[in-house]
């Protein structure tokens, strides 16, 4: 299978740059799979697990925040507010965050709070998914 250059950029650092066979990204309109030679494309990401298949057949997972994925001729770029590898994720903390967000959503206190809690919940779920995927390798 042909491969292409895939990179993840955050404001803090160039997070990742790999040769990959395919990428499955959490688009706002659902999961989106990108193979080599995809047409130029831009779409919005929501917080979630991003899966990339390395040329040797191994999979890697990264938890990404809101952002974009941009397919260009020579490379594919993800721009995101946050990106974390499985070993960087604190599972207990993500679980606490998930619980907190769920509680807040259960007893709604204001419009802004709901949006914030939903965003927090999405982030926590993304992290948990990525952490739990790890044994798959």
């Amino acid at each position: 299978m042909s491969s292409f250059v895939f990179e993840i950029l955050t404001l803090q650092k160039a997070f990742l740059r790999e040769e990959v066979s395919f990428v499955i990204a959490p688009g706002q309109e659902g999961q989106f799979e990108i193979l080599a030679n995809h047409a130029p494309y831009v779409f919005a990401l929501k917080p979630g697990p991003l899966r990339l298949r390395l040329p040797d057949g191994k999979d890697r997972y990264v938890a990404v925040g809101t952002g974009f994925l941009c397919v260009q001729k020579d490379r594919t770029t993800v721009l995101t507010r946050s990106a974390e590898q499985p070993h960087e994720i604190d599972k207990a903390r993500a679980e606490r965050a998930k619980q907190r967000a769920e509680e807040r959503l259960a007893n709604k206190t204001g419009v802004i709070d709901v949006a914030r809690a939903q965003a927090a919940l999405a982030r926590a779920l993304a992290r948990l998914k990525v952490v739990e995927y790890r044994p798959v390798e």
Partner: protein
Amino acid sequence: MASLRDIRRRIKGVKNIRQVTKAMNMIAAARLRRAQQKAESARPYADRLAEILQDVMASSGGAARHPLMAKRDVRKIALVIITADRGLCGAFNAGIIREAQRFLREQTVPVELITVGRKARDHFQRLDYTIAQHFTQPSRDVRLEEVGGVSKLVIGEYGAAKYDQVFLAYAKFVSVLKSQPTVVQLLPFVKPADAGKLAKAAYEFEPNAEELLNTLLPQYVEVLIYRSIVESLASEQAARMVAMKAATDSASDMITGLTRKYNNARQASITNQLLEVVSGADALAKKE
């Protein structure tokens, strides 16, 4: 003439101060390096975001409209001023404040201030300006969440038509020896100046261009604010480093001068004492 003990005490005092300024100089140097790195590592992201933004706007044939791009009659302006929480960094804060004031003088409509960092707030509070909101200076590792407050506020108030234009005053980092206080327009969104080469690639979008702009533009504003805060931080540390270096040098000069004075005084007092002994002996000799 100062007594020997006075001079000795002053030398000790100046030496203590020199120790402090020297430490501050070194701390500022270390922090400067990290701030520079931060500014550096934000660049690929910011550049690519600007690129995509332009591509999206170009591909949609300029048809895409967005509230953050809407030009309105200007009745009220917001100015975000980024300064430090602390002083002892040369003319850093004063420079930004002066630039902000020049901007304020030129405006014909009311301007409300949003201050980041204590120095700007303290200054403009004294002058009775309206400070809509104050943020403390973000910590040294400038997390995105700390910046988010500013961009959310700005975008929210602009969207709600409370302000019709938003400007940003900050110290652009040129080099270690030079920072440039600058005022730039944040909103309505203006195309980045380097919009020279348009990508020929026709993009497809998902969702459509308009909705994409919905997420792109706020992020871009956030990035602009983040960048200016990081650059201000680097400028501040550079200014502090230079100021503390100068302070350390002049403390050293003072110590040299004082030591010379001290030695002179010591010599003089020895000479005096000798003279007394000799003339005493002379007087005794004459009597005999």
